[in-house]
């Protein structure tokens, strides 16, 4: 539920596997951008979910059907966020398996209407459309509100402008951050009232 006062909850999911990982590096840069844009009196509370630390609980949840405590906390953080930044490395032409497994554990309607910024990292810019053909449809299925700018960082982006004909990585991060901040600020939540819906069954 969005509150008009109190802190804004920004949650970051990073599926990078290296320590440190370039996905986390990108996630941190985007987080700073969103935080900057949101700055306007309200405190921004950032929670980072590193999926690497939850790899075993995620696998166990797939087997048992329920999340162990640290994973339950992560799922609660994501579903309760005012805005979500989701970053995955590109593995075999798509998001990583761990990233998808984590999202598989979230109730299908839990991200409805949630502002989401999608981002990915990869060794080459040739994979950048993974954001458009894999991540965006995934979040569209979950009825999340995905901002127009998706941020892809190839290895070369960390060393300069990369392609002189396109925006630089910092430009893209700033634009995406602005879009997410705008969406978070304007979001009005309409959460389903489960008790009422249930009682209606027998009315």
């Amino acid at each position, binding site marked *: 539920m969005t509150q008009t006062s109190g802190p804004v909850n920004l949650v970051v999911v990073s599926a990078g596997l290296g320590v440190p990982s370039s996905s986390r590096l990108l996630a941190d840069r985007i987080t700073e951008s969103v935080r900057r844009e949101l700055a306007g009196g309200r405190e921004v509370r950032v929670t980072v979910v590193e999926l690497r630390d939850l790899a075993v609980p995620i*696998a*166990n949840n*797939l*087997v*048992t*059907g*329920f999340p*162990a*405590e640290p994973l339950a906390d992560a799922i609660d953080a994501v579903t309760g966020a005012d805005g979500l930044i989701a970053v995955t490395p590109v593995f075999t032409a798509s998001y990583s398996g761990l990233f998808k497994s984590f999202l598989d554990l979230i109730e299908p309607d839990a991200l409805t209407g949630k502002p989401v910024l999608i981002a990915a990292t990869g060794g080459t810019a040739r994979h950048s459309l993974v954001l458009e053909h894999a991540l965006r449809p995934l979040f569209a299925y979950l009825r999340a509100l995905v901002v127009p700018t998706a941020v892809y960082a190839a290895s070369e982006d960390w060393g300069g402008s990369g392609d002189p004909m396109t925006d630089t990585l910092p430009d893209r991060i700033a634009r995406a951050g602005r879009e997410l901040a705008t969406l978070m600020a304007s979001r009005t939540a309409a959460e389903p009232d*489960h*008790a009422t819906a*249930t*009682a209606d*069954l*027998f009315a």
Partner: protein
Amino acid sequence: MQFGIFTVGDVTPDPTTGRTPSEHERIKATVAIARKAEEVGLDVFATGEHHNPPFVPSSPTTLLGHVAALTERITLSTSTTLITTNDPVKIAEDYAYLQHIADGRVDLMMGRGNTGPVYPWFGKDIRQGIALAVENYALLHRLWREDVVDWEGKFRTPLQGFTATPRPLDGVPPFVWHGSIRSPEIAEQAAYYGDGFFHNNIFWPMSHTKKMVGLYRQRFAHHGHGAPEQAIVGLGGQVFMRKNSQDAVREFRPYFDNAPVYGHGPSLEDFTEQTPLTVGSPQQVIERTLGFRDAVGDYQRQLFLMDHAGLPLKTVLEQLDILGEEVVPVLREEFAKLRPAGVPEAAPLHPAVLGRNPKETS
């Protein structure tokens, strides 16, 4: 309080020997387990219902009718009866007949079933699971209470002037539980009718069970059946015991590690911490089970899962001896001491079981 066992009826290889019992062996073992449950002083034997391998209990009233003939006292129940894919008319008739055969020692638990293909195999749609449970039970409820029923709904052919036969024993239908792990609609359904609510509890964290039971209690009171603490609650549990807890852990571990539901996932240690599974001494089982009360309040029925994951019959029977001799007598005493006046001790028993004539007492 009622204590008993519930069986899934899985045919699972014994991981320590690699041997898989035949269906015939498993069915006969189930009967032996039910008889043993009565012998060691338990109150309830409940069977699951499944329509796909590796499970055998597709015909619960055949099993329970047979067990009725071999026992004197134990309540025969289900865990669960598929209210979604079975015809409610057939449930009404089968279980009323069983009531007569068993002289009233029958109650049953409604469940939706979670095996996707079973729905289309029986001509139903799993996406309508809740709606099927709601409509079918509404019809079943009437068939047991009204001699002549005119009815029309979405999911089965209409009825005009229909009488389910035989009529419930002495006009008193079997007590009904509604079992659900995570659907608030089913807790609401149980509360609406003033029926019992059973949470399977095993394989799930207690915090989750607590939430569902809390919802049921609150809605039970809302619908005017009594105070929240008077609602009829049942829980599942899963235990493996030896005199020394280390022996229990050592013996049960291969069964745990290869179990159909949770095997090859979390460790035995993690799972016992996160769910009500207790592997240890009888005293540990007593303490853990009393702890359920702290989460859900005083409750009326505790069923244990004892015979799954390929445990051999001999071991299961030993477990039932320990349960009946060392655990349940202590639990009966402790729960009775803690239960305040005004909270039902158990789910209602049929008047025939209590030796009363319902016409005189009503």
